[in-house]
């Protein structure tokens, strides 16, 4: 029976080619608009660490001045001070913990054929690498060193290793930079988490840094403070050490809790820590710690801007218009063959048969719409790459998106065709047989 409906539907579509193409194109356009905007939301809010994003937390403490908000309306700063970073990391209250910040300096390779360049460097404690599942091509990272240990070690990104050492295994090699000699202990594989959740000060889709060095190196060599630096004290003195001892925030602090450890325990620890610091005369404001897991943090930072949600809702309305449009066209299409249907009814087809046949036709049109939609979507996403150059590396039509596209097309074609199909199947045949 299905095969018969199918062949009838194909014939009908063939007979009303113009109208059928119009219906499919209309649906396809609406679906493409919807999917292009939805793909932005889908791709921008992807979980960057799916295995354990709910156990990895970003730590915020409010060390700000009384009656002053670090961030409006009354939120704590998004970074922490050097002192808090050191204290909390060395307290080892979580499974893994690392504070890190961005800095930069000249990298001067030994090989004279490689010109010196200004390297963007992440200064970080070693547990950064296992916590964020950073993939290594060669070698490995380092431990969280005690506060006074200065080790001149570095990990290179894949592209930096390519640039400096021509892509060979450079573990154990010496690299002069920042005026010192560093030993390469590891080389990363391709790594570009999206969003770059662990530090979004240069944008959520900014590429990761060229090199990594232990956090202590930053203090030892007095490297510049990259990323966001916020201070509320007016005169902190001139010394680099004074900055580290001040209430200036610059370091991102992340912890990973063990599987059996709950968030409450760590929050209690933070509470106790801040109370202890209050006793030492710091933290003048009421306690306002924020502990967010990766996805909560991405939502907090509004990685998907409200613009993109607005586009999506407008595109959804656009799809609705296309569905209404297709519905009126379908109604027209079925009305035009009233006499044919009356004939079939007179020859014994029941209402259900007519309805099924019309719906089959509708669904075929929906599939055509999906095809047109996907093609338009591919073009549209090229446009999106052009409009959002920072994000372009991540734009592609993945499997879930494809499936959603097909699903939405079928749904909207059924929505558009349902009432016309019912109407035409309820038709009294007599009037059309004259």
């Amino acid at each position, binding site marked *: 029976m299905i095969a018969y409906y199918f062949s009838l539907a194909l014939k009908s579509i063939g007979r009303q080619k113009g109208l059928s193409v119009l219906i499919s194109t*209309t649906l396809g356009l609406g679906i493409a608009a919807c999917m292009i905007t939805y793909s932005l939301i889908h791709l921008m809010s992807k979980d960057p660490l799916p295995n354990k994003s709910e156990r990895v937390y970003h730590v915020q403490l409010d060390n700000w001045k009384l009656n002053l908000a670090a961030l409006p309306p009354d939120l704590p700063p998004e970074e922490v001070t050097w002192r808090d970073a050191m204290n909390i990391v060395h307290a080892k209250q979580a499974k893994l913990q690392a504070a890190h910040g961005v800095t930069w300096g*000249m990298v001067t390779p030994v090989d004279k054929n490689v*010109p*010196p360049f*200004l390297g963007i460097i992440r200064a970080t404690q070693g547990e950064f690498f296992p916590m964020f599942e950073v993939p290594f091509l060669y070698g490995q990272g380092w431990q969280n060193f005690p506060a006074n240990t200065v080790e001149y070690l570095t990990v290179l990104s894949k592209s930096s290793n390519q640039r400096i050492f021509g892509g060979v295994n450079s573990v154990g090699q010496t690299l002069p930079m920042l005026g010192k000699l560093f030993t390469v202990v590891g080389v990363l594989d391709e790594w570009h988490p999206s969003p770059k959740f662990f530090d979004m000060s240069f944008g959520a889709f900014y590429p990761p840094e060229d090199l990594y060095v232990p956090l202590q190196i930053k203090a030892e060599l007095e490297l510049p403070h990259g990323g966001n630096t916020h201070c509320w004290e007016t005169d902190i003195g001139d010394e680099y050490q004074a900055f580290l001892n001040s209430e200036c925030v610059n370091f991102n602090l992340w912890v990973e809790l063990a599987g059996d450890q709950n968030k409450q325990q760590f929050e209690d620890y933070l509470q106790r820590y801040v109370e202890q610091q209050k006793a030492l005369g710091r933290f003048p404001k009421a306690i306002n710690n924020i502990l967010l897991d990766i996805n909560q943090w991405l939502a907090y930072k509004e990685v998907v801007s409200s613009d993109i949600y607005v586009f999506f809702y*407008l595109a959804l309305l656009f799809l609705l218009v296309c569905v209404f*449009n297709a519905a009126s066209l379908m109604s027209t299409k079925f009305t035009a063959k009233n006499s044919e249907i009356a004939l079939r009814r007179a020859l014994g087809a029941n209402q259900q048969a007519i309805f099924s046949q019309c719906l089959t036709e509708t669904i075929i049109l929906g599939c055509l719409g999906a095809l047109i939609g996907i093609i338009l979507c591919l073009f549209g996403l090229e446009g999106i790459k052009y409009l959002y150059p920072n994000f372009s590396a991540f734009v592609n039509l993945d499997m879930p998106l494809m499936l959603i596209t097909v699903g939405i097309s079928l749904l909207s074609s059924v929505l558009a065709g349902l009432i016309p199909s019912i109407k035409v199947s309820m038709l009294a045949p007599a009037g059309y047989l004259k």
Partner: protein
Amino acid sequence: MRMNVKTYINGLPISRIAFGPIMSALHRQKYAMTMLVLQIALTLAVISNGLFIVSQRFEILQGASGIDEPHTFVLTSSGFTENFDPQTSIQTDLAELRQMPNIINAVASYSFPFSGSSDWDELQIDAGSDQNIVPAASYKLDEHGIEALGLTLITGENFSPSEVLWQTESNKTFPSVVIITSSVATGLFNTLDWPSVVGKSIFINGIHSAVIKGVVRQLQAPWDAVGQMQNSIIYPRVITRNSARYLIRTKPTMLQSTIAEVERYLGMSNQQRMIRKVQSIQSLRKQEYGPDIAAITILLVVITALSIIAAMGIAGMASFNVLQKHKQIGIRRALGANKLDILSHFFAENVIQTSCGVFIGCIFAVGLNVFLVAEYALPKLPLGYILLAAGCSYVLGIVAILKPALKAMNIAPAEATKSQ
């Protein structure tokens, strides 16, 4: 005379429109008509809200930064050797750059409009009080700054060379004289009489006293820390860093050739540093406003596609009706209706449809806007945009039915005699 008026009115096409048949025709196609009206309504809602957002973004794009954008570029000079002396390097470079014939002036500054980073300081009239704190982004420029940026000094004086201090990042101090933007002047003194603020003292960050030496019309802050992009203050300072940024203003039409020339010259003149991040202010502006440009593009594409879809729906419906009513139209023509009557029948039908759509669409438009205001903090939709979108709907409707209506108009009365 009264008779004449009546005949005249009867002579007008509008009074000859047979509303009865139109209404009954619309009534007979209830489902299709409902779909059509809903389409028009949603289209109106999307177009009015979309156009409003577009116009707001255009306003943002058009905002001036106060500097001579088309003729200015920036670059970074990064020293990398042990014995690189930033201050000497900056002084030599600037002296050389200011000599070049195509360059109006050049200045060393870490911050400039669209650079994305700078300090923000808090300004007050009275020391230490919490009253009337005006935040301002601070620029550190020497006496060439105003000319190099192309700012308009509306009152007061530029810095004198003796006021300018060379300092490093770690030992910078606050100056005793400053230049402020007109917007800061208004914020602090609540006045539009700029000359009156020159010579007055202000306090920076509650404790450092400084005298206002001049007021510039406009200088946009490098980044938006507190939603006050026009609040800037200039200190007579040059902060030396290993990585120094130069802002260079060229003569009109000389931008591209000067960029190449400067890059070549600086690259050769001192081998202890490298020249990076050479960018025109216009390309920086484009990056900065990328999301707004994207929003405008996406919304305009959606609005255009939506208009086409809606018009196609209306046109498709009308063509179908013309086809179906071929014989009826022929009969009406045979019974004495002239071409104009047929044409006005279709136009009237269209206007009635559109009016229903516009009526419901106004409600949708307001509803959509209320949602966007609540969820995404968008501003309220002015009535003008709804009216504009309604006007667009009528034009769209008329354009869409033009072809089918003309076709209907040309149906010969003889069609009445043909069997279907």
